[in-house]
């Protein structure tokens, strides 16, 4: 199983992260100074690291504005800042994952894979656990169909 994290390259605008920061300020929370957004994909199947890198570079990241990290297994937290991670709950249809699985086959990688998609929000600044929960529930996760983890 590989986890592929996508991030905005230095020098390019992280529109989603800036939008989330603006929403955080909009609900009256102060202390968070910056948000970095990173979509991620968990690819489960009989693929090797070279194939995972091909999937990341050719399919999941934009060659101009985005970079990627490919890790074996789910990625451990390395940042000292809190991360809010949002994923679909078990049993909820993840339509993007279906498109990714189709596109992996189009790339010529014909092995069967299972894909999960998620979103990571790296928060810079000060925020208590209560505030992080509030940000997750009010802005980042639809808790009917999504679950979130604060790392």
């Amino acid at each position, binding site marked *: 199983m590989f986890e592929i994290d996508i991030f905005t390259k230095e020098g390019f605008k992280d529109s989603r992260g800036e*939008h989330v920061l603006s929403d955080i300020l909009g609900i009256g929370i102060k202390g968070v100074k910056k948000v970095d957004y990173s979509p991620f994909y968990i690819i489960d199947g009989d693929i090797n690291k070279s194939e995972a890198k091909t999937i990341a570079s050719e399919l999941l990241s934009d060659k101009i*504005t985005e970079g990627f990290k490919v890790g074996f297994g789910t990625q451990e937290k390395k940042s000292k800042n809190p991360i809010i991670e949002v994923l679909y709950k078990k049993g909820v249809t993840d*339509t993007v994952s279906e498109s990714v699985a189709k596109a992996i086959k189009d*790339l010529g990688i014909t092995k069967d894979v299972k894909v999960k998609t998620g979103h990571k929000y790296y928060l810079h600044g000060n925020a208590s656990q209560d505030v992080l929960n509030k940000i997750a529930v009010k802005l980042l996760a639809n808790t009917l169909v999504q679950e979130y983890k604060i790392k």
Partner: protein
Amino acid sequence: MKKVKALILRTAGTNCDYETQAAFEMCSAVAERVHINSLIENKDKIFEYDILAFPGGFSYGDDIASGKVLANEIKNKLGDKIKKFSLSGKPVIGICNGFQVLVKMGLLPEPKLFEQVSTLSYNDSDKFECRWVYLKTEKKVKNESNCIWTKNLPDIITLPVAHGEGKFIPVNFKLLEELNKNNQIVFRYSTRNGAIPEYPLAPNGSVEQIAGICNTKGNIFGLMPHPERYMFALQHPAREGFDGEYGWGKIIFQNAVDFVK
């Protein structure tokens, strides 16, 4: 007289194919909407057509990034045919999602290269931007556009935009210089008077306000605005148009049909 045939390539999530078909038919072409699976089954069918159009919409739900899944599919399953068609000099157009597909498979800005060297990224606002905008037609070749699709247009036209990922970014400054030098920039967002606009008339934050580009030869054209949505003056909010009846989109599609004739 020869009937010009246009192929409009559609897939799951395409939603501007009927309007694009109607636009070509209004210009006396025979236009057919062809599903990508049908073209993959019979790849040489593409050469039965004179014009190739990638219409707007939300192919594969805009999953991963707009146009990415379709660009990947076309490049890996139809790449050499699409490249051959494009290099033959026949007109090719990508509108909105179609422009994103052309850029992400690398057919623009240069089909010989056929590598992605520019992108259409998220709007600076991180929102879907939908409105009428002004476009400045670049006329650097004998006071005319280098692109076969945009001859005979006035300096400033209006067209509607509707997209979430329309911010054009070239890989580096050198490419931007080349696009300028080779007259590959076709449209820039502008004010009504041709000045550099601010948001919301600049809807996405594109580098140098770029709204549409073509290849060096001028036969492959990609643009974020929707010319197929402005064929009649009646489609404009103020009922503006030319000859009292038509919108600027009519000239764009007619140019391609006349070029083939």
